[in-house]
């Protein structure tokens, strides 16, 4: 019949991610949505803040943004802004650090990881919104590595994700994610190479580049990343672990 031919909204099938888990923020401060006038005030400030007027605007924001609104604000900044506006990541990250709260940072990380989880878990790689995934990955790097904060293993285990995605044919989504996150380490004296954690992930990427027989676009991602670190492809020795049985389980402990 004609009705059954009509396209139904396609059900997006999700897989359960290994090596990617999200810590909930401890509920030390009750969270609520701000009243309408406060929402308007906060949005007005975020719309008008720039690197030049930063100091005055951030102190306005500090007054309006009560700790009870951190969850709401994080969702707004990540989902409405960072996800689609990569050119403003540096500014938004400075807004976050300018508020000067560890709890706000926890909420930002929490919302960012949840958004990333939802994209990385889409089973059909064709349907993954790669642009949003890259933007959010870069944002994750901006609110961690770029400001000298670690990405904790218990939340995102980078090497394990790469190795697992090789086994499960998910390299096409995981490699751009890892590269975009890591790229933000170029700004950090702590995380840029020779940081052993960063180098350790680069070594796995380089082994994959040699052996995974992947699309040229993924090689390009790795090349761009190496270039951002002012490194040549041959400057770092690839690992030799891809074909070691149970390697992912072993490394994850």
């Amino acid at each position: 019949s004609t009705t059954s031919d009509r396209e139904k909204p396609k059900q997006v099938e999700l897989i359960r991610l290994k090596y990617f888990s999200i810590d909930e923020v401890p509920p030390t401060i009750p969270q609520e949505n701000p009243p309408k006038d406060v929402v308007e005030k906060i949005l007005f400030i975020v719309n008008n803040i720039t690197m030049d007027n930063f100091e005055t605007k951030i102190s306005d924001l500090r007054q309006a943004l009560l700790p009870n609104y951190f969850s709401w604000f994080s969702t707004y900044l990540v989902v409405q802004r960072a996800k689609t506006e990569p050119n403003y990541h540096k500014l938004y990250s400075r807004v976050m650090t300018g508020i000067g709260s560890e709890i706000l940072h926890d909420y930002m990380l929490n919302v960012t990881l949840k958004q990333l989880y939802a994209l990385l878990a889409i089973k059909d790689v064709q349907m993954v919104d790669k642009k949003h995934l890259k933007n959010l990955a870069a944002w994750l790097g901006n609110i961690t590595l770029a400001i000298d904060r670690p990405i904790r293993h218990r939340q995102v285990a980078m090497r394990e994700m790469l190795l697992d995605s090789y086994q499960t044919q998910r390299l096409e989504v995981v490699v751009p994610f890892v590269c975009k996150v890591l790229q933000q380490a170029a700004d950090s004296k702590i995380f840029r190479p020779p940081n052993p954690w960063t180098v350790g992930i680069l070594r796995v990427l380089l082994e994959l580049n040699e052996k995974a027989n992947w699309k040229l676009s993924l090689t390009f991602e790795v090349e761009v990343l190496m270039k951002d670190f002012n490194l040549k492809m041959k400057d770092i020795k690839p690992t030799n672990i891809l074909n070691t049985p149970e390697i992912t389980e072993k490394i994850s402990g």
Partner: protein
Amino acid sequence: KQLPLPPIILPPPNHLFVRDVWNNNLHREFAAIRKLVASQYNYVSISTEFVGTMARPIGNFRSKTDYHYQTMRSNVDLLNPIQLGISLSDSNGNKPDTGPSTWQFNFQFDISQEMMSTESIELLRKSGINFEEHVNAGVDVSEFAQLMIDSGLLLDSRITWITYHTAYDLGFLINIIMNDPMPNNKEDFEWWVHKYMPNVYDLNLIHKVIRDFTQPGAPQLTLSALADELGIPRFPLFTTTGGQSLLMLLAFCNLSKLSMHKFPNGTDFSKYKNVIYGINGD
């Protein structure tokens, strides 16, 4: 005047246990460490075993502390650590009731490649170091560094590090994590320490300050003599590198409890937070 000795403290048996870490259980043990760090065990102590001071820098130095830094720097750049111990507790000194909370990492270390005297080889052998095992089964320092960096112990203001006569322990750890030669001057070194470990206490310094109130000018105590004063029995375990970190943590937490985290004049211990004894503790 002599203060009465405090009652003897007997920690539960599972607290007096050091897990030896070699290449084959490195990842598994780090999984356990990460779990503890995530569940409020946010105090960590560190001790290191290395061959001893081998190099003395020559030249002109800006100050005595500069000379001390340059000595530490040249030795850390020149030598490799043999073992590193860490012990975890919560801020009140409580340890988990099940499973280990102290680890001794045994690094890859080949005496034929290292600068060391036969004397110190013998001394280390006698203290229980098995150099053959270190060649064959030792932990790769770079893998250790990677696992440390995302463990949750570093770069986090919610973690407090406890050390005893800090300079070399922090020097080796920072050197491993930097994966680069040590900074030229002590100010840069302090920058790295402060970044990676925003809260560091030197138990030796804290105790020295306390003693200066009661016995000005008295010679410094060793860690085991300090532990005696606090009523911690001398278990043989405490002489190992892992055991040293455990003893350090027990002693710091006991001292904190006894003194309410304050010096005799009421000043909080935190006045001496992040002072690296012998380097910036003039």
